[in-house]
């Protein structure tokens, strides 16, 4: 038997297997139980759920459409929780590509929850200038955001914006950053350290966030699609992330299987070479 073959499976077969393991569970779900990670999703939910009704939370769209599968379910779940608890939302974004994209998700979920634009939530859109813009907003939110929302309407026409004059802990009860890269959470823990910061991010960003969670600079971390699925479970509103978890399970198993096959082939061929 040629052990080299075990190490050199045609990549087209691998691509086909990846496609199958991702597609089949979507149509034939296994329904595996999703347990909540208490130190991550559970902690996030417990703290975020205690934000009193009438408070305002800032959502930062620091991601691009590429991270749709992981982040959009989190956006929808957190929006639903806020609307259920009577928490208002101001939505901005450090990524110019994230702002129109979060608008799509919010428009859908606002229709489901009957949230009123201007009263329950406002999208201020992308404001160029990076941290300089944030620093201006800290002193004068309206000046930093040029007093216009995502649609170009004046803040004067939006009742919710009358409560937001400065970007500080008096105006905002929390910041939730939906993050897939840089600029990201460092903007907030550097310039608005008094506002509790929550991070909902793609899975690859999670390991780098944990020191900040331990130090208290982050109040909660929502880890990738699994975090989104767990959150959907906690708010009792299963959505896209719950449906996709089986596909992710199958894909991880395939990777592990391929690693085993490749390494068995490698070890056996090495042993034969020595003999």
């Amino acid at each position, binding site marked *: 038997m040629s052990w080299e073959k075990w190490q050199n*499976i045609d990549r087209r077969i691998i*691509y086909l297997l990846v496609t199958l393991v991702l597609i089949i569970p979507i149509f034939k779900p296994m329904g595996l139980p999703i347990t909540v990670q208490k*130190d991550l999703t559970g902690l996030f939910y417990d703290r975020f759920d205690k934000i009193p009704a009438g408070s305002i939370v800032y959502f930062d769209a620091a991601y691009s459409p590429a991270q749709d599968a992981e982040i959009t379910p989190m956006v929808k779940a957190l929006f639903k929780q806020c609307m259920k608890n009577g928490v208002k939302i101001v939505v901005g974004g450090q990524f110019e*590509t994230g702002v129109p994209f979060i608008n799509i998700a919010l428009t859908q979920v606002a229709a489901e929850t009957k949230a009123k634009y201007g009263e329950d939530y406002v999208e201020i859109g992308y404001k*160029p200038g990076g941290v300089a813009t944030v*620093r201006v907003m800290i002193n004068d939110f309206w000046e930093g955001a040029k007093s216009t929302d995502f649609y170009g309407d004046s803040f004067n026409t939006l009742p919710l914006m009358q409560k937001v004059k400065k970007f500080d802990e008096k105006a905002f009860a929390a910041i939730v950053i939906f993050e897939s890269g840089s600029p990201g959470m460092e903007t907030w823990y550097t310039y608005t350290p008094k506002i509790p910061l929550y991070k909902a991010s793609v899975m690859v960003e999670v390991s780098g966030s944990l020191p900040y969670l331990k130090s208290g600079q982050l109040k909660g971390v929502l880890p990738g699609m699994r975090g989104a699925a767990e959150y959907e479970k906690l708010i009792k509103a299963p959505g896209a992330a719950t449906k996709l*978890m089986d596909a992710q399970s199958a894909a*991880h198993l395939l990777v592990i299987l391929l690693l085993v096959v490749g390494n068995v082939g490698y070890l056996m061929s090495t042993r034969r070479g020595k003999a």
Partner: protein
Amino acid sequence: MRKQLPIIITMVVGGVLFLTSTFFAAEKTGLGTNIDRFQQLMANVAFLIGMGTLFRLHYNNIRRRKENWVFSAWFIFAMIAYFILGMVETNKGKNFMALYNGIITNTNSTIFAIVAYYIVSSAYRTFRVRSGEATVLLLTAVVTMLAAVPIGEAIWPGFASIRDWVQSVPNVAATRAVAIGTFLGGYATLLRVFTGMERQQLGSR
């Protein structure tokens, strides 16, 4: 003077921002906020400069009939047309948003999704237990991958405990070490730029 002037500007602006973000008394002067306002304005101007630079680059490709110049022509058409559409319709416009949702969103998501295929293929081809360190890395990767999805805990609930320990002890220690090293390196670079020792941004070596 072409080099001295940018260095002097860097030192003055850097000094003001350092002082205003470090000392409360300096912050009260409002100098830092004025610099922030200027930076905010320049960020908007930078978009136009970016468009101008891209236009010049691709226009030259077309003029000299360089390889694939047709794509340059298409790029200029798309950039200018979308810019004009955005100026006319703004984010309220159905066409402006439909183009974004129908092209940018799908293309971006597709390119990112394709990466999954390459990751699986390259992990299979390169992840070999050639040494003790590689073996530890492989085992950690397998446990973490299993623990990250529901099927892992369905196979053995203990995967979750191992993942928690890996994430909260060795991972946090290593991440903090990397972060401290990175920030120290960043400070050193900032000091070099601030004092004029670093001149690569001015085109010098």
